[in-house]
């Protein structure tokens, strides 16, 4: 199949369009500007809408509006801009509305820098907005995966009527790799037919809202949400690399996952029995895969581009069955395979 050579950001835009995305709303911020740039070029010509909004908050509320109309739509930003979008994401979750949010994250907190970082793990996975809700989170490690997971994000958003986040970083957004595009999806026009707003005509009007004041209704709605999240557990995705005979399993996601893979290849040549588990879905988290490895007596080390966030989910999954250390790479520093050699070797030598 013929391949094209594109940036991660462009792959995300192409994935969205091939998934049937027809509305994009955004506000510029580095390092994700190639997403709106590509969308602004293509969407108007295929009957879609591109809006450069007056702010991130306006953009994400337009996403909410498009979702309420059953339209496949997306917004994208980078860390500080994603913080601004949290209120609307909570409203979308509270209203059972689909939508795709892309975070090409950068160093933080605050304005931080424009380099790569995974400091937004907690915000993405634990919910940066208020209320007892979850969003599904997918973390690509290559440009092809950025394309594929963006397509998947739209499927999941509509299957579960829930916001879905694609969480990348400046590495995933800015690097270029060959990708193979798939056949574009033509969404079933009825996929939102039972709930979207389209003018009631003869039928009973529909109301989409997150305010639930009637006695018992908010409790019931929260139960409904939890049932939905329980169902979404089947969407767990992860990659294992050389775990079969590994004494130590490194857990790392996104760009760090693939960088660590290079370290592991090198250490394998020196005889270290080390493998990798890379969560692809961060929520739902691939806990059972970790539990299985723990049951086989493996030890664990989490490596991430922050000072220790995902490690909390790894430890929760392991539930005391196995210990997991953490090596945090500082934001403001480009991670390379060399950086992870020493921490992995050290963890391998630490015998109980």
């Amino acid at each position, binding site marked *: 199949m013929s391949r094209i050579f594109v940036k991660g950001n462009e792959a995300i835009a192409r994935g969205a369009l091939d998934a049937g995305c027809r509305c994009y709303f955004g506000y510029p911020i580095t390092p994700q500007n190639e997403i709106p740039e590509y969308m602004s070029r293509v969407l108007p010509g295929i009957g879609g809408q591109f809006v450069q909004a007056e702010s991130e908050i306006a953009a994400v509320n337009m996403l909410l509006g498009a979702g309420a109309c059953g339209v496949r739509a997306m917004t994208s930003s980078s860390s500080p801009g994603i913080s601004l979008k949290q209120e609307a994401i909570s409203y979308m979750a509270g209203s059972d509305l689909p939508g795709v949010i892309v975070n090409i994250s950068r160093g933080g907190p605050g304005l931080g820098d424009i*380099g790569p970082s995974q400091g937004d793990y907690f915000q993405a996975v634990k919910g940066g907005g208020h209320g007892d809700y979850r969003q599904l989170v997918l973390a690509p490690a290559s440009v092809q995966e950025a394309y594929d997971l963006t397509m998947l994000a739209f499927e999941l958003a509509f299957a579960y009527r829930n916001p879905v986040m694609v969480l990348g970083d400046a*590495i995933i957004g800015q690097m270029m790799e060959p990708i193979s595009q798939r056949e574009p999806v033509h969404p079933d026009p009825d996929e939102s037919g039972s709930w979207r707003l389209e003018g009631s005509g003869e039928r009973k009007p529909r109301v989409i809202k997150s305010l639930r004041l009637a006695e018992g209704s908010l409790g019931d709605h929260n139960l409904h949400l939890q049932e939905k999240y329980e169902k979404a557990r089947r969407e767990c995705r992860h990659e294992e690399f050389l775990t079969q005979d590994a004494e130590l399993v490194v857990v790392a996601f996104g760009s760090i996952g693939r960088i660590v893979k290079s370290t592991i290849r090198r250490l394998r040549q020196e005889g270290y029995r080390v493998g990798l588990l890379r969560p692809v879905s961060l929520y739902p988290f691939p806990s059972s895969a970790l539990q299985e490895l723990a049951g086989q007596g493996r030890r664990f080390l989490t490596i991430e581009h922050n000072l220790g966030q995902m490690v909390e989910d790894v430890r929760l999954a392991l539930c005391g069955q196995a210990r997991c250390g953490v090596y945090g790479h500082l934001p403001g520093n480009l991670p*390379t395979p060399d950086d992870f050699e020493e921490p992995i070797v050290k963890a391998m030598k630490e015998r109980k």
Partner: protein
Amino acid sequence: MSVYQDVIIAGFGGQGVMIMGSLLAVAAMESDLQVTYIPVYGPEMRGGTANCTVVISDEEVGSPIIKRPLSLMAMNRPSLEKFQPRVKDKGLVVFNSSLVDARLADNGRVEVYKVPANDIAADLGNIRMANMVALGAYVRVTGIVELKAVQHSLEKVIPQRYHHLLPLNSRALEAGTEGVSRCQKTGV
């Protein structure tokens, strides 16, 4: 693994190092290899050195970022000074000898090739072709992809508005393969 090469390509902003990297990467893709290209962007693009990294392999590429590369293309002196010490022992350096004193080459530790890229480009009538000359030299000494694959990839990488320059770019790549020579020993 049978095919693997990684390279840092560096120069000043404006010398076209990003195009060199993306052209090499597309040529690798067209040669059915796996490849990753990552630019260093941001403040460094505005003055000082600009650089990008290309990793080529016949299997899945791991890290797109390389601290100690197997090879380096240095288009100016600051780039050679900054990145040459990082090249792995017995690695390979191709530098633009029109702008860099050959005595700075760390010959012996690494294999060094010089190409007077600016002079060759000026002889071709357009000094902006120096990047293509250097890339031609690199492709010749590494053999990582065929020169023809690079030439065929030009039209995919060079913006449409410069397509009248495709034949000249192609000639510059070829001139680079002819103009490159191995530095015999340090200081020569």
